[in-house]
């Protein structure tokens, strides 16, 4: 018998792997994706499938170019998570090349130029998203009418939009955040009522349900201990406080209600699926709280005062820059470095 010589510990948490973590994140997106599909048709799902396939190809190519083993890392699902998150953020009916550019940027420039999984300073999906947003603003701002106003597009429409964009007639509508940004002179309540069919019960037809679904998925991930509560709570608390302070009793120059901000656009998706990306966020719990809070403040500021209707992607990327700095100042107190006497 030959004796193995390995370092302790010799036992490991059963069923724990990067693959497992990524799988759980993917599972947790299901409620949100289903909600998007219900209100906006099958575009998102088809984009996710198409985007994931492309992402796997890009990942394999990048690994091969870098002279790495390209079989094992493909199995860790991390690139599928990146593709899924990007495709959820995209409008549902976009041409194939838009997805290809987005995925290419995410995987190659967001991830592999920095050294691949674990080395990327920025959230890869958000890198891809922001490149698309600033390069193709038209395509990136054309959200479909939600079910309840028009008919949600069908599968045929989805494939037409994807591969024959020129023959696809999109029926688009402004999102509640668009309406809010373009508002000038209307009281918040009046604005909401003037487009009652779009603004829906809380924060926009469809959008409140989509946000609730992502919130549900996020809470499940929290219970699975995939991440800690710090970043999401930091972001949602900061956003709530900013909205409460800036509401200005619904005046035309005010910042919109708390519920409007919490359940609009990418708030919950961002709070539980984007800023919780561990690689590019701060490392300590205190750091993650600050990281989340800063994203929340930026989201509010850009939504209310900025040029873009939503701001999760910008907020996250800006804070990715700041994460190493946050880490420097938020190191937890190590055992034995704080003085507590036995007699005290």
């Amino acid at each position: 018998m030959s004796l193995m010589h390995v370092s302790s510990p010799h036992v490991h948490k059963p069923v724990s792997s990067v693959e497992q973590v990524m799988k759980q994140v993917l599972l947790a997106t299901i409620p949100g994706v289903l909600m998007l599909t219900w209100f906006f048709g099958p575009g998102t799902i088809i984009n996710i499938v198409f985007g994931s396939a492309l992402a796997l190809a890009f990942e394999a190519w990048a690994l091969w170019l870098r002279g790495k083993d390209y079989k094992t890392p493909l199995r860790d699902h991390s690139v599928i998570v990146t593709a899924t998150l990007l495709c959820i953020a995209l409008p549902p009916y976009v041409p194939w090349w838009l997805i290809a550019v987005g995925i290419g940027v995410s995987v190659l420039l967001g991830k592999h130029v920095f050294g691949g999984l674990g080395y990327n300073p920025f959230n890869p999906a958000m890198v891809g998203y922001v490149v698309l947003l600033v390069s193709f603003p038209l395509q990136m701002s054309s959200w479909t009418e939600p079910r309840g106003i028009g008919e949600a597009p069908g599968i045929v429409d989805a494939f037409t939009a994807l591969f024959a964009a020129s023959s696809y007639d999109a029926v688009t509508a402004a999102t509640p955040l668009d309406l809010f940004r373009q508002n000038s002179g209307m009281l918040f309540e009046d604005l909401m009522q003037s487009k009652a069919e779009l603004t829906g019960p809380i924060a926009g037809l469809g959008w409140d349900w989509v946000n609730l679904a992502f919130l549900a998925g996020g809470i499940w991930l929290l219970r699975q201990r995939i991440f800690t509560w710090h970043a999401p709570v930091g972001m949602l608390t900061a956003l709530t406080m900013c909205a409460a302070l800036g509401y200005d009793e619904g005046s035309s120059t005010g910042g919109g209600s708390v519920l409007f901000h919490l359940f609009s656009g990418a708030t919950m998706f961002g709070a539980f699926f984007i800023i919780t990306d561990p690689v590019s966020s701060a490392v300590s719990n205190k750091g993650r709280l600050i990281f989340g809070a800063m994203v929340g403040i930026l989201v509010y500021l850009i939504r209310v005062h900025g040029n873009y209707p939503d701001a999760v992607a910008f907020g996250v990327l800006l804070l990715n820059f700041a994460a190493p700095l946050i880490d420097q100042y938020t190191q937890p107190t190590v055992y034995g470095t704080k003085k507590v006497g036995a007699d005290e």
Partner: protein
Amino acid sequence: MRQIFDIHGGIHPPERKEMSNPGWVSDCDMPSKLVLPVTQHIGAPARPVVEVGDTVFGGQMIAEAQGPVSVPVHAPSSGTVTAIEARAVPHASGLTDICIEISLDGKDEWVGCEGLDNWRNETKAALLERVRLAGIAGLGGAGFPTAIKLASDRDSGIHTLIINGTECEPYITADDTVMQCFAQQIVEGAEILAHMVGAETVLLAIEDNKPEAADAMRQAALALDIAEVVTFPTKYPSGGEKQLIEILLNAQVPSGGIPADIGVLCQNPNTAIAVRDALIHGKPVTHRITTVTGMSLKDPGNRRVMLGTPIRELLETAGFNADSADRVLHGGPMMGFTVTDLDMPVVKITNCVLAPTRTEIPPPQPQQACIRCGMCAEACPASLLPQQLYWYARAKDQEQLERHNLMDCIECGACAFVCPSHIPLVQYYRSAKGSLREAAREKVRSGNSRARFEARQERLERDAAAREAKRAARKAAAEARAQAGDDPVQAAIERVKAKKAQQETQQ
């Protein structure tokens, strides 16, 4: 009820303690040969005082302590010394060390052991000397010389003695068994220890997964009014000295310090018994209770083993199926190390020999990239940031490693246990700690050589100055003489002239 406190982090690995049937102990068969390393403790090796061919008896000292931080080694039974040479010994790095091999004669003849009639009448120094001569080193697994720990004279004094029966490592039930079977002896030992260090409180600490041991200890503790049994929730690594102190006293041992700094002393139950036996019966440490377990054994359990028994024989008496195992561990699965040679002996710190099957503890999985998920930081009982330490260890960034308190890592392995990327984190930390220690030594060394260099430089300058001064003084004297009119050259010429003139007159 004493209030207990929680520690940061911690994990719940499968315990698998029932396998070794805690509460029962049997004698291991007498081996034909014993191999006794001269270093079974932390500190300087003991020096053999027997020679090959000597006959030795049980309890006889065969190697004496060298220096203050060292303990002697005694023969566990009678026989003949057949070799004194380097052999493989249990060590995380797979080192060899000088070992004394004894071929046993099977008669188990002992030298007379003399105990103290009343240890209360002895001075602390005398008691310490007995502890030292009995070869007692922390039997929980650390192996630090007990006499040194007991002798430490802090201004604050020791107020609390903790008998650490936590035993949070999975699989191991040696302490559990000892507490169930020898509770009274433990409490007697604790009384002696408390007397020696002047502790006012004795806490008998046990995790709540050992109710039988807690009951036995409670019963025994009735005999000692300063003693109290404290149980607390099972969580790894509650048995770490620092963690246990936080659980029981809500106090933290300062970074880089020892429990005595805050008036606490921790001892393992086995060590308490060893101290008791040394003082009351005059018996040195020659045997210990070891858990022999794992699914590749037919008959796992706790054994009373002679120190020096080869691990191979211990495993064989427990029905070892070598084909189903590919590693044997010295210690538990969280902090134990792999045995590289089955001829290695059981030593004072061997609390467990674990022979798992390949399915029970599978080979390590390939390492994946760190995704900074932070599960390690959640699990770390020292509140470190293991993922940051890992990056800094890889980057060999010593400044950041120190800033992130690498040296406060207790190597419990909780971080690596939860790591979804299967990174052997503890291995990185051990190696990085080694480099930090080396750097610190290097600093001291370069400091020393700078001091030496400067001293030499100063001495050379001093000598040069002294020579210069002497020369100047000689020159000054010569000049003074010249001034005074007695030029030495002129005088010599005069002398020669006078001599010549004298010769001429004689002729």
